[in-house]
């Protein structure tokens, strides 16, 4: 019988817990109206960035395409000409497509980029009615003219990119460009 009494007390405790929970404020954030603030390093949809003067940061180096484990990036580089100086370097990306259905949001492209041109931002509302609508092109990726943000680069790398990156011409780069961080070279004599 005392076991039964103990059981009854346990039942009462359980009931009181659920009742007290009922009086608590729900933790739900009602989504479309209210949105949760994501951490700065959230890896959502990609954004291509610009410099202050409106030129594109992307120099069409194909490093991101090469590093992408999912093969989600497709780039067609083109030469910059005197009349048509699209990016800061010698070349620019004429076509820049990201297949959001293939992308695994690993962020390797962001790490590989020598000019901090591509970043993964907080936009996680990635959905569409057709496959085509999720193959996004340069127009959708590029931030609008007149804006020059760094995006999550600042969150990943507290030091802002050096001003010399503005003049990146492909002649020198660092291990940071391929996602290894700014480490001293291990092999003596090896160039950087």
């Amino acid at each position: 019988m005392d076991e039964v009494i103990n059981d009854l007390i346990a039942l009462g405790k359980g009931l009181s817990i659920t009742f007290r929970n009922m009086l608590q404020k729900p933790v739900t954030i009602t989504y479309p109206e209210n949105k949760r603030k994501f951490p700065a390093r959230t890896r959502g949809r990609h954004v291509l960035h610009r410099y202050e003067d409106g030129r594109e940061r992307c120099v069409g180096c194909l490093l991101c395409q090469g590093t992408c484990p999912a093969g989600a990036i497709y780039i067609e580089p083109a030469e910059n000409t005197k009349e048509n100086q699209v990016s800061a370097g010698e070349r620019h990306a004429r076509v820049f497509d990201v297949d959001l259905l293939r992308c695994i949001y690993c962020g390797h492209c962001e790490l590989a980029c020598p000019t901090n041109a591509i970043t993964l931002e907080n936009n996680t509302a990635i959905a569409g009615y057709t496959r085509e609508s999720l193959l996004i092109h340069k127009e959708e990726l590029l931030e609008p003219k007149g804006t020059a943000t760094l995006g999550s680069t600042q969150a990943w790398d507290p030091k802002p990119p050096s001003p010399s990156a503005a003049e990146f011409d492909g002649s020198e780069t660092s291990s940071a460009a391929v996602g290894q961080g700014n480490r001293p070279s291990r092999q003596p004599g090896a160039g950087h």
Partner: protein
Amino acid sequence: MTLEALGFFVGVVIKAVLFSVALLTGFAYMTYGERRIVARMQWRVGPNKVGPWGLLQPAADGIKLLFKEQLQPKEAKTFLFVLAPMISLVVALSAYAVIPIDKDPVNLFGYSIEPWVSNPSIAVLYLLGISSLGVYGIILGGWASNNKYALLGAIRSSAQVISYELALGTALVSPLLMVGSLSFRDVVNQQLDHSYLTGDGGWLILAQPVAFFLYWTAAVAEVNRAPFDLPEAEQELGAGYHTEYSGMKFAMFFMAEYVNMFTVSSVATTVFLGGPGGLPVDESQGLLFRLLAHGPHWFLLKVYFFMFVFIWLRATFPRFRYDQLMRIGWQFLLPLGLINLGVTAVGVAMQWKSYQFTLAVASMLVTLIALSMLNRKPEQPDHH
């Protein structure tokens, strides 16, 4: 047929329709209320998009269920397959016919309107008999689906309902013995017309707390609600006896479950909580006092309290195992009910007053606890 008889007939039909509509509306909003309350107990919000605060959610669900495809397994027995949900729903609705929602008939436009559909002198027997027919709906549904999970669910359900019906009956007999009548109206009047201390009245839960506890436990099991929802244990059986049902046929099973919940809540209210009785004030002092004394609103309040308890239990307790279920029913509820019945019978024979019953029940419990403490076995070392 005389005009009076015709009038009586029409009155009963109208009341029956009103009760059914009220019950089904109640069902619709119980699903909504249940989802909202369970959600709050789990720190969620629940359905809040359809209409203001999600109040039109039941309508949306109803429309969805109406237009859903009516699936039926190829090997199912069509006739029984269609009949089963109807049995469940009809039985559930007709059980409600004998519940009085107020104390006395009301005079309206020169007619005396009785606040119950019918008031047979064997109301309790009728209710127990009718509600135990509900198991046919479940068994036939499970069998006609030609699905092993449905059949297993149906068998579990019948075993459970039959076991707990016994405990339920025993628990109900004790208070009815005190009243000395099987009519719900007498039960209500007894509780409202006599005082607890000087007479044999007062809410019967005061005189029969053990019977109330047993009744409520058995009732939860009777209507297959959590934590006794083994017949529809999703993790083990798909969805139990209604695995193969969809659309409106499924909705009928669903309605039957909720209407049954209303019925057992109403019986608990009527038998143990004084039915439509409210505060002990003199009702001859005006309308306000009349409303404070008794009325359908009190009845509804208590019924909804019990409905809330159903939801509360569901949100709190995990499902019992099958052996636990049987042990609780046969080794705990039934013997306790019988002991309680014996004590009550002695009391009735000796013409005790209400509070003496309470004392008797209390001393019975104390004696049981003391005895079990004396008899305690030495602790067994745990070998795991």
